[in-house]
């Protein structure tokens, strides 16, 4: 039964791979004429940033990025609904503690740099958020039960910050501006930076909370209670 199931999954995955290869081949062979890259580069001065990838992600296709953040939010809601988090690791030894003390601040500073540099060079909210998240992973491995995150109520605010601020800006622009997520040229740079900052914080705390792997542990959990939750 189990073997038949894995065989079936294998066949379905191979069929999917064949379909994808076929689509790739036909699009390359058919060559649908001019691509979107020249258009994107032409509109770059109006986008508020000077890096084309960030312009596509946060301006031309901001809707896609909003939905990506919503996917992350849905994922963390799913993880939290699985039940309480397992108890954390025991406090780290001296070597790992010193390493964490060095790496975590460095990761946070590098994350901030990647966020800022995303406007004119490779970088951006997802990479910066991943660095913040990895700082949380290191803290959790070094024995911090909540991966450096605040209590549960504050975590909920952090996790919805990205989608929330993105939607708020979009709706305000839809009511008072040119349309949903159509930034006015003068303030585009600052709106993008605002959205990216909120997205970075949300992505970082979502990834760290995902690594904790369950509903946030209570602050004043006794060791017996946490052993109970971990079982």
């Amino acid at each position: 039964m189990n073997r038949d199931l894995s065989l079936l999954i294998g066949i379905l995955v191979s069929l999917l791979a064949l379909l994808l290869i076929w689509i790739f081949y036909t699009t390359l062979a058919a060559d649908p004429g001019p691509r979107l890259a020249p258009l994107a580069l032409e509109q770059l001065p109006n986008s508020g940033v000077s890096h084309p990838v960030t312009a596509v992600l946060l301006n031309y296709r901001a809707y896609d990025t909003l939905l990506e953040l919503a996917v992350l939010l849905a994922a963390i809601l799913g993880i939290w609904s699985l039940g309480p988090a397992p108890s954390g690791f025991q406090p780290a030894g001296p070597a790992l503690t010193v390493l964490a003390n060095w790496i975590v601040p460095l990761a946070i500073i590098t994350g901030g740099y990647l966020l800022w540099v995303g406007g004119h060079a490779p970088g951006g909210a997802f990479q910066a958020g991943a660095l913040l998240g990895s700082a949380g992973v290191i803290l959790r491995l070094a024995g911090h039960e909540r991966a450096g995150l605040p209590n549960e109520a504050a975590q909920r605010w952090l996790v919805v910050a990205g989608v929330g601020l993105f939607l708020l800006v979009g709706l305000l622009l839809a009511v008072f501006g040119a349309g949903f997520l159509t930034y006015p040229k003068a303030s585009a740079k600052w709106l993008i930076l605002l959205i990216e900052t909120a997205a970075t914080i949300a992505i970082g705390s979502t990834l760290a909370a995902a690594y904790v792997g369950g509903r946030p542990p209570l602050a004043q959990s006794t060791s017996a209670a946490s052993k109970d939750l971990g079982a």
Partner: protein
Amino acid sequence: MSLLLFVFDSILLLTLLGLATAAVLSPEPRNAVMLFIAFGLWLSLVWARLGAPDVALAEAAIGAGIGGALMLAAARRSARRDNRRDNRRDNRRDNRRDVSCQDAQ
């Protein structure tokens, strides 16, 4: 120079395919995840070689780093659960054996 680049690209691609195959065929989840992390880091090299540093950064940070950490944690938890189930089954079998021993007596 272009020959050198061709050799470099071939090594890059062959190693990528090898890592992918090894990760898929590995029976042990822990080993599969480690191979997958190596695959992600290697893939970020390929993206950099293709001139897409944004994708390379995202692949290394999210695909290999955070994804790998999440999957390692999941593999550890599922292994622990399997162990517990095996222990329970062993215990039950031991109990039954005890009962049958008592019957014999």
